[in-house]
């Protein structure tokens, strides 16, 4: 039996179908059910994803509720988080890289946690390394609770040093800058072999600046001390390693060289003696086809004081009422010793808690120096000082510094050219801090 379909019937059918589809789609986009523990994190590899899945299981076991994590590749994480915060769709707990905490805190995107900490006798802030407590604070208030913290260290290629008849550096006594430079030059004499690698960005340069007694940010002034003699000494030192000493692999392009993994890629090729990087790369360097280890960062005029970085969990300002209670319990669980044991045992990074530190285990043989540096027993570290507009500072310096590293402009001229714009950003930062306090 056949029947003809009139145009009116067809249109009506299409309209009904459209309505049904819309209804179904809107039903699908309603998000996790109330009472679910939602949290956001960056994740760029299957290994990372496995760790966060284990975190999810841990949360469900400990809290007896459903855990729903939103995982985003690290490059796109801040943008996605911004949009979620603005649209009110952010998770109740969100991971933050330490250098972004002042940015979010000063804009009121995340809430201070002091009241929740004070009202919770089970939470012990003293179990966290002082460096991560400093990194997670803004204007005297705690805005986040850390999950990892670590100083920049110096990786070295044991095999390459041995092949060149060079003794391994001391795991407890940092090399002086003079010794390090002499070694880097010596190890660069063979064709295709280099003494040192780091990225030509402020994120790596800042460790040398701290070791020289300088800084990019001065907490008390609204001008940057980047052009002060101490900072300039460090900038000249590192730029010379690139341009005069030719102790570094040549810069082929700015995009990959500015990326965080560039130094790692150079080092893993096996023809670079020393790499500046954090212990968060231990997991990746374990894939190297040569013997390697880590030692403290070279000591400059002010000693060995490399950048100490960390990451934390925070609660968005929009989380209120019952959700706030759940968010605090979730945050405590995600930063508990048990969760950080999972994180550290997987080799991701040094955990932020002292009680979880033993889970971050060798190899390499000297991995223990990470905790000793954080405790001040070996060399030292300097919490990463950033501004409320560090994104802009980073971008400004990312545009101008490479010209010095490429030898297109002298280090002095580069910094002179940057200073007026940098000082304008520092004034803006001071205003933001004043308003926030």
């Amino acid at each position, binding site marked *: 039996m056949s029947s003809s379909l009139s145009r009116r019937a067809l249109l009506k059918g299409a309209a009904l179908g459209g309505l049904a589809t819309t209804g179904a789609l809107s039903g699908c986009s309603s998000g996790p059910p109330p009472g679910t523990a939602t949290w956001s994190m960056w994740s760029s590899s299957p290994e990372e994803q496995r760790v966060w899945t284990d975190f999810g299981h841990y949360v469900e076991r400990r809290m007896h509720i459903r855990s729903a994590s939103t995982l985003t590749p690290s490059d796109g994480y801040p943008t996605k988080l911004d949009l979620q915060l603005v649209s009110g769709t952010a998770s109740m707990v969100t991971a933050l890289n330490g250098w972004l905490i002042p940015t979010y805190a000063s*804009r009121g995107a995340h809430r201070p946690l002091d009241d929740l900490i004070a009202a919770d006798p089970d939470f012990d802030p003293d179990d966290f390394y002082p460096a991560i407590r400093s990194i997670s604070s803004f204007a005297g208030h705690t805005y986040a609770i850390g999950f990892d913290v670590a100083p920049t260290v110096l990786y070295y290629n044991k095999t390459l040093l041995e092949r060149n008849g060079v003794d391994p550096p001391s795991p407890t006594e940092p090399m002086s800058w003079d010794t390090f430079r002499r070694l880097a030059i010596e190890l660069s004499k063979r064709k295709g072999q280099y003494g040192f690698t780091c990225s030509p960005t402020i994120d790596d340069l800042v460790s040398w600046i701290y070791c020289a007694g300088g800084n990019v940010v001065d907490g008390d002034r609204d001008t940057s001390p980047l052009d002060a003699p101490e900072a300039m000494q460090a900038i000249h030192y590192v730029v010379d390693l690139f341009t005069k000493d030719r102790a570094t692999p*040549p810069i082929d392009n700015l995009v990959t060289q*500015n990326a965080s993994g560039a130094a790692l890629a150079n080092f893993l090729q096996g023809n670079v003696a020393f790499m500046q990087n954090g212990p968060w790369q231990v997991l990746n360097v374990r894939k190297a086809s040569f013997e390697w280890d880590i030692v403290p960062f070279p000591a400059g005029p002010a000693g060995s004081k490399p950048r100490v970085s960390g990451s934390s969990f925070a609660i968005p300002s929009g989380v209120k009422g019952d959700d706030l209670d759940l968010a605090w319990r979730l945050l405590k669980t995600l930063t508990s010793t048990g969760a950080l044991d999972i994180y550290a045992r997987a080799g991701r990074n040094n955990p932020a808690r002292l009680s979880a530190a033993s889970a971050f285990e060798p190899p390499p043989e000297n991995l223990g120096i990470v905790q000793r540096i954080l405790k001040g027993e070996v060399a030292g570290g300097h919490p990463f000082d950033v501004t409320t507009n560090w*994104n*802009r500072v980073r971008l400004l310096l990312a545009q101008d510094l*490479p010209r010095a590293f490429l030898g*297109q402009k002298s280090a002095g001229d580069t910094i002179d050219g940057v200073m007026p714009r940098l000082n304008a950003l520092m004034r803006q930062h001071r205003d933001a801090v004043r308003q926030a306090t």
Partner: protein
Amino acid sequence: MAAPTHTAATAAPRRTPHGPLRGPRPRRHGSETLAAWLFLLPSLAGFLVFTAGPVIAAGVISLLDWNLFSPPRFIGLDNFARLGPDDTFWSALGNTAYFTFVSVPLTLLVSLGLALLLNQGLRRMAVFRSLLLLPYATITVAVAFVWVWLYIPHDGLVNAVLGVFGIDGPAWLISDDWAMPALIVMSVWKSFGFGMVIFLAGLQAIPQQLYEAAKVDGASPWRTFREVTLPLLSPSVFFTVVTSIIGSFQVFDQALVMTDGGPGTSTTTLVMYIYRTGFENYEQGYAAAQSMVLFAFIVVITAAQFLLQRRLVHYDL
């Protein structure tokens, strides 16, 4: 079958009081009008939601001081006043103009040249056409990554080829002087396929009798091209120029992947600067003001092209 409802073919044209001659306006059934609107609705809704809406929203946001998280504050035209002393904005605008006014003519020339070649009735033309269209069909980011590798100063293919001819190639993507030309070359390679297809369609629509007549009149190939091909191809050229200029003013992805806007700001394009202002520096109002300026530039340039169209574009000889 329904009977015709009007006799348009036999009705005499009528003159409107202030306008040209017009035929009688066809009457339509209400259901046909409704059907027409229903078919138009998806496009219209898409235009309103994804084009007109954002443009209006950007206009409103450009009057605000808004960092995404704090409540927005109305500041009038302050964001536009900030543009004057902003060197990076003018540098980005200059870079975008440089990119546009070099890459668009080059792309047109390459597209036209290849379209003319393919129009010669070569054997296996479909294969050539498909191969030449491949760069256009490939994702820009993927192409850009490949070109980063090609441009590597020491071991890259581009400098290796130049070396064969005794030329010591520059450090393309990290050189102040060469980074933008390197981007332009990549972009021409990426986009010539689009123009080539449009030109090929235009060439194939030109009546053969005109070429035969030119041949009978003894016109040289160059004169035939100048007097027949080019005028009748002018609608295709016009379309390609307008769309290419609009696209070039919005260049973003290849610059981001290949140079990150550097060295310095030598390859920072306007859209890249707008993105960074809005989503990295959290200055939504200022970014919206910049985007309104870009919008105005594109509208003015496109309007100028439409004005020129009356003099330069021919739909018949």
